[in-house]
């Protein structure tokens, strides 16, 4: 049985449904990341697990116990807030010890656990400081310390790194991954940053408008997006998506036509989940980093608009004959100028195929 189980959960704010029948589960020790654009309901989903919002429909189970309408404290979860939510009038020690004091733990036990958490997070020297005397990264550690000291069943993280600068965010990301490994904790983590999602998660839950679009491992989501939304959302730079018409359907292959292809058409081999009809319009997807300049049969031809030198790589923006925008991430520096014509091949990358409803057609 799953450690955390959410079944058909619905949440409405007034008449407005923000979570529309979400079901998902997490195993003990798993790192699950909710990712999605702003306002998609991922934080609300986390708050429903915490008990900070009431569930309108559905059930929520933690460690075999139904907690759908249980008080937050009875769920034995800890949460790290985006703003850290440290008590500003208490010292770091008091902040970490607060939950243990409420649980009426003996003083020596509180001290032992606070010191242990401080040691793990390397904040022993900060214990007598107030939150305002700490940097963003230090506050973040204290917030995590407050979470781990209670030894919760599940850690909930609500965009915990979004207030940090890029360098600190990368550093804290590594530390969080290490912490997860060392503690073996079950973590549910909310972010809108797909790099955090890809690097930290055992499984990613992609949420859009209160609905789960896909659940899977980072590699799954990247290689086999279930629909166009996931395809566009996961990966940076974004996947190139363009339309093509089905001109022929044979056993196991389809032929499509688009001005993006140098020859005007392309044959795609299966296996397919469903065979499209001749004359139907499909959306095809090519990841910018999967495209290679030269080397093999060209899949796309376009004229260069702009290049961005990223040091070790170059991002090339261009336009196909029919005006379709294309992006290529070349793993080398290039000497291209605006107006240059360029052909790229697929190499070992995948061509993603979506039907008229935006659902993936290819396995």
């Amino acid at each position, binding site marked *: 049985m799953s450690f955390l189980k959410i079944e058909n959960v619905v949440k409405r704010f007034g008449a407005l449904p923000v979570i529309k029948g979400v079901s998902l589960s997490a195993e003990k020790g798993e790192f699950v990341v909710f990712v999605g654009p702003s306002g998609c309901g991922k934080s609300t989903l986390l708050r429903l697990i*915490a008990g900070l919002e009431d569930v309108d429909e559905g059930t929520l189970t933690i460690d075999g116990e139904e907690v759908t309408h249980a008080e*937050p*404290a009875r769920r034995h*979860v*800890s949460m790290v*807030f985006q*703003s850290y939510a440290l*008590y500003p*009038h208490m010292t770091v020690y008091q902040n970490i010890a*607060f939950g243990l004091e409420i649980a009426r733990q003996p003083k020596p036990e509180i001290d032992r656990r606070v010191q242990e958490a401080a040691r793990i997070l390397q904040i022993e020297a900060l214990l007598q400081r107030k939150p305002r005397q700490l940097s963003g990264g230090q506050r973040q550690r204290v917030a995590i310390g407050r979470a781990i000291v209670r030894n919760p069943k599940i850690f909930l993280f609500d965009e915990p790194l979004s207030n940090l600068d890029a360098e600190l965010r990368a550093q804290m990301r590594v530390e969080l991954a290490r912490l997860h490994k060392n503690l073996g904790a079950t973590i549910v983590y909310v972010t809108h940053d797909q790099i955090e999602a890809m690097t930290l998660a055992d499984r990613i839950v992609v949420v859009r408008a209160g609905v789960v679009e896909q659940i899977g491992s980072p590699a799954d989501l990247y290689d086999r997006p279930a629909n166009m939304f996931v395809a566009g959302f996961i990966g940076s730079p974004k996947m190139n998506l363009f339309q093509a018409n089905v001109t022929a359907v044979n056993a196991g292959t389809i032929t499509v036509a688009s001005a993006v292809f140098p020859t005007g058409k392309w044959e795609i081999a299966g296996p397919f989940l469903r065979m499209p009809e001749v004359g139907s319009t499909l959306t095809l997807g090519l990841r910018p980093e999967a495209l290679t300049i030269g080397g093999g049969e060209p899949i796309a031809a376009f004229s260069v608009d702009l290049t961005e030198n990223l040091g070790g790589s170059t991002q090339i923006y261009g336009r196909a004959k029919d005006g379709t925008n294309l992006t290529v991430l070349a793993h080398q520096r290039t000497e291209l100028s605006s107006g240059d014509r360029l052909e790229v091949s697929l190499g070992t990358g995948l061509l993603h195929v979506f039907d008229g409803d935006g659902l993936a057609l290819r396995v």
Partner: protein
Amino acid sequence: MTDRHRSPLSGTSRTASGTSRAARKWREALTGYAFVAPAFVGFAVFYLLPTVRAMQISLTDWNLLRAPRFVGLANFERLLHDDKFWHSCEVTLAYVLYNIPLQTALGLALAVLSDRLARSVILRALIISPYLISNVVSGLIWLFMLDPLLGLTNAWLVAVGLPHQPFLASPDQAIISVAGISIWRHTGLTALLFYAGLQSIPKHLYEAARLEGAGEWLMFRRITLPLLRPVMAFVLVTTIIGSFQVFDVIAVTTSGGPADASRVILWFIYENAFQFNKMGYASAVSILLFLVLILITLVQMRLLRADQSDLD
């Protein structure tokens, strides 16, 4: 252009820009003073000059008819041996002690309840409404309400089987009744100030505490109260100063009676100044009250660390 060619020019422009910067600073300062001037003139005319004048008068014997006669610190010396003055101090202190703790506690409770439960604009408007009535009018309303024979309050007491109370007509109950009127009138304002203070406490602190198992009372004690400290300091300083200066309700309801039971310091000053024409003596009491209030305020602000907030 070479450096050799540019240097005389740049020297000139540096001087010119220096002059214009000074001129701009001067203009800016003048504008600032112009904005502050109306408030300063008001403060000087209505507060500063009367205070200085009261200090002068406190050193004289002056009955408004003869010219003031300098008597040095004689008025202050006389104060120390004046039983009526000490009695008025006791009455004032009793009024402050009846008024402030209850008003503060009620205001805080109303603010917390409306923040945690209701958050209704209509409720807040209702709570503040007594404050919108002037002191004199609220004094008159309660004079009728608390009338020993015809007052509505006694009718209610009798209706629930309790005995008649003399309220303002009793030496034992007069100052408590006046404090009750003040609490009725001012609690709404106190509640509104606390409510504003509560809005500055981030809501996620309560969420974090709830996750850690804290109940409402614990959250109030360990989060709300410590973080309201600067507002608490403001409320206590202003209400305590206001309480020491209670006058108009006394003037309307008891005139310092019965049997001097509600003769507060300000009423004592008023009697001496305008009924007994002892302007020097009345000014000496005013100055003493002024100094005592400054002292109380400084101590309070120090104890409550009023200038420091834990919130970012």
